């Protein structure tokens, strides 16, 4: 076996030294009735080439974002991945290390996490960020739990514009804890303004997605006022992190916790994971933050270095009283995002966000001008918006796929009230020609 170095001679010598006659004797502590008396029903070992070919055949059966025009977003976004990101994260010193428990030989990982904490804190406008959560959905669920701990309240209000999967994950996480969940309804313009009636003295937080699942940009400032007036917290969940480059930082608008998904920052879509959950809060709430944190310190000779810190919040110290059970996080995805943000930088990231906006606005203008298509939500949007169709969306999308175009998400399972509608995402990957083509097919051209 190519991954195992032992020769038969090694095995003999090692058994002799450890005082075992045969390999089987090593397993003597396992009572005989519990031992497997047969071989596992797993196919025989294959060479590298055979495994490669098998996986390549499976990969070839999947639709993907680089095969043609692709307008599917809805929480997972197709962006261009700069070459340096994968080249650098592929370095074995990053890939094949683990949680930096031993800081003297983990400074690379620790400094990168510190840089990520700084970057995401700058983008969200809040002070303390952790070293990642599993994904946007679980980060948002952890934010709800954190708000419940801070306020000692048990009700969570969810904006209708929150990603339906995020809502489901929050409901799963809260189920055993006696919490209740209420919904802030969707307004005509596609936003979820928070009415005072949605928040009461038992509300821990209201969670608003920015931009919403429907692509609309919420008015966070007035939402924050409403929520704070009742002593609750405003949690802002961001599924398209690139929007942070263009929209006012949620922390500057009154958000108490900003969480979400940073897959857009250089992390491959990978059929939904591994992605990059993030969670950022006010410094005053740092001891309620879940997950790992990296802090700056000095070594025995006074030189700057970084360590995991404030671990008294965590499961390996506090066990059942920990702020979360999270242990392994999404470290390498955090590194991808840190490298991506370093490459794009202060100006590149903004330009990229403006390009996304410009292309989406072009597409919206085309929709307005195309008979058979409409824009049911009037609120401003970033790179994603809802298109109303006169004909059934499922059939239109299938027809588009027949022409090699992935023309968005059928909203029927998620928002039946919108009627026949498609969630259409336009990133920098979309050319003007491909936008024209996709909208043409959705409108029924060539059918």
């Amino acid at each position: 076996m190519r991954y195992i170095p032992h020769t038969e001679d090694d095995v003999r010598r090692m058994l002799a030294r450890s005082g075992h006659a045969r390999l089987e004797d090593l397993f003597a502590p396992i009572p005989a009735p519990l031992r497997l008396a047969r071989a596992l029903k797993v196919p025989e070992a294959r060479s590298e080439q055979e495994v490669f070919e098998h996986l390549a055949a499976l990969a070839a059966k999947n639709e993907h974002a680089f095969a043609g025009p692709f307008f599917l977003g809805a929480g997972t976004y197709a962006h261009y991945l700069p070459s340096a990101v994968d080249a650098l994260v592929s370095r074995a010193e990053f890939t094949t290390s683990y949680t930096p428990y031993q800081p003297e030989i983990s400074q690379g990982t620790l400094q990168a996490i510190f840089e990520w904490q700084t970057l995401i804190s700058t983008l969200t406008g809040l002070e303390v960020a952790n070293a990642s959560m599993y994904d946007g959905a679980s980060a948002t669920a952890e934010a709800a739990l954190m708000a419940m701990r801070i306020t000692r309240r048990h009700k969570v209000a969810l904006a209708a514009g929150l990603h339906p999967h995020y809502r489901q994950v929050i409901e799963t996480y809260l189920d055993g804890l006696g919490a209740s969940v209420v919904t802030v309804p969707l307004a005509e313009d596609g936003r979820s303004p928070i009415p005072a009636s949605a928040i009461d003295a038992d509300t821990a937080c209201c969670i608003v997605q920015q931009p919403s699942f429907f692509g609309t940009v919420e008015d966070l400032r007035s939402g924050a006022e409403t929520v704070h007036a009742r002593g609750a917290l405003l949690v802002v969940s961001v599924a398209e992190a690139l929007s942070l480059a263009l929209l006012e930082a949620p922390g500057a608008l009154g958000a108490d916790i900003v969480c979400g998904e940073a897959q857009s920052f250089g992390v491959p879509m990978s059929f939904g994971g591994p992605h990059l959950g993030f969670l950022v809060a006010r410094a005053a709430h740092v001891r309620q933050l879940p997950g790992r944190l990296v802090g700056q310190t000095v070594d025995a000779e006074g030189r700057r270095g970084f360590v995991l810190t404030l671990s008294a919040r965590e499961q390996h110290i506090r066990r059942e009283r920990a702020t979360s059970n999270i242990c392994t996080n999404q470290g390498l995805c955090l590194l991808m995002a840190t490298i991506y943000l370093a490459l794009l930088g202060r100006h590149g990231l903004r330009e990229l966000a403006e390009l996304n906006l410009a292309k989406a606005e072009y597409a919206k203008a085309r929709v307005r001008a195309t008979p058979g298509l409409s824009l049911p939500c009037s609120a401003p949007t970033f790179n994603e918006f809802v298109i109303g169709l006169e004909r059934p969306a499922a059939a239109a999308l299938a027809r588009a796929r027949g022409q090699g175009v992935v023309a968005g998400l059928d909203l029927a399972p998620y928002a039946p009230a919108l009627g026949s509608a498609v969630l259409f995402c336009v990133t920098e990957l979309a050319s003007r020609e491909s936008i024209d083509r996709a909208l043409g097919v959705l409108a029924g051209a060539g059918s």
Partner: protein
Amino acid sequence: MSRNASSGLGYEEPLLFERSRPGRRGAEVPPPDVPPVDVAKLLGPLARADLAGLPEVSEVDVVRHFTRLSTWNAAVDLGLYPLGSCTMKYNPKLNERVARMPGFAAAHPLSPAEHVQGLLALFHALEQLLAEISGMDRVTLQPAAGAQGELAGIMMIRAYHEARGEKRTRVLVPDSAHGTNPASAALNGYEVVSVASGADGILHPAAVAAAMDEQVAALMVTNPNTLGLFERHIAEISEIVHARGGLVYGDGANLNALLGIARPGDMGIDVMHMNLHKTFSTPHGGGGPGAGPVAVKELLAPHLPVPFVVRRADGTFAWQDELPGTIGRLHGQHGNVGMLVRAYAYILSLGAEGLRRCSEMAVLNANYLLARLAPVFHVPYPGTVMHECVLSDRNFADTGVTTMDVAKRLIDHGYHPPTIYFPLIVPGALMIEPTESESLEVLDRFADTLLEIAAEAHGDPDTVRSAPHRTRLRRLDETLAARKPVLRWQPDDAAR
């Protein structure tokens, strides 16, 4: 003795933000092929002014920066990384390559099932392989890590009891368990009751029986446990729990000892998670991502998370979103799929025989190291171990040298230290898991080094206590970091 490492190129590197110079850039955005937009007009007060605070660096800066940072890390590809209960085995390069195929890496989770049949087929096949390896009936691939798997497993247990009209309140957790176990139980609203291990380091039926009643929802057990010992009373213990209506949760963190040897499903375990980043070689990535599939017996199948893949009569695959008793959705999409692809490639590469060989060699390596070290190091629980062994610093008590010092001194010799001060039931624990990836020569050099450090602890304790000496940074002040938390860079820090 030959050294495992010597001084080489050692680079200094500031923070990204300190490298920043106005006007530099590391990426260009393509020219627009659509009319420009007026951001202020479109978004008004919703727009932000600027991204001040983000760095301005060239691509060369970025590549040098992160390449230099990487040289400050220990890694499996550099050498032995014997972190106990973390299974830092070799991560095959093939797995990295296949996970990057566009049909996997650029696939979208919301593409309709009929257009991602290759991925659904992989899910289905991997579920079946993991069910066979663990001896369980059904598998969910959704949990993103072991701890999320535990959370899912305990949720399913809670749903099971509730479906039977029972509201149980407690979960039993052995005192040797990982901290995630009690934390996962608490996240389900359960009271955690610690069960003491016996003098021989394993769980005894009498202790479980004494704690067991009709209020106990489950016992969580790690087998082999964190002392590297097989819980040999597990079948009897499972019967005790089942007789009072409870279920048994298996923490699969240490499954690398059992592949093809024994199966948790044959020991009375009702639900367990597996850590693909441990047993199935997906890389640890400096802290993640991992993946924590959960396998269950049929009695918990009605409570599995949704969605899951089903195979239709015509051989095609589909998602099933509905299940009346489901605990719901745990992940925003389908879990850490990139890790699933890697683990699948790994299992296919090894085959049944290779999987068994992994466990045999992992266990042989741990026992060999133990045999070499036992004459000098205190072994709190002697005997044949499974995939890892636990030592302590008791024999150095009179020198002032602690486990922390031994760990730091190992670094001077080019080794990542073992897990230290865990399990909590062994004061000054050194928990060593060599994995099957390490050759006899590597183990001998490592054992020689530990023995040398032991001698040094007696002859020159100050050198051990002030280690590491040969690293870029000396021992770091963790107390200062916690007392005055600095959790992000701010411009005025540069002046310090």
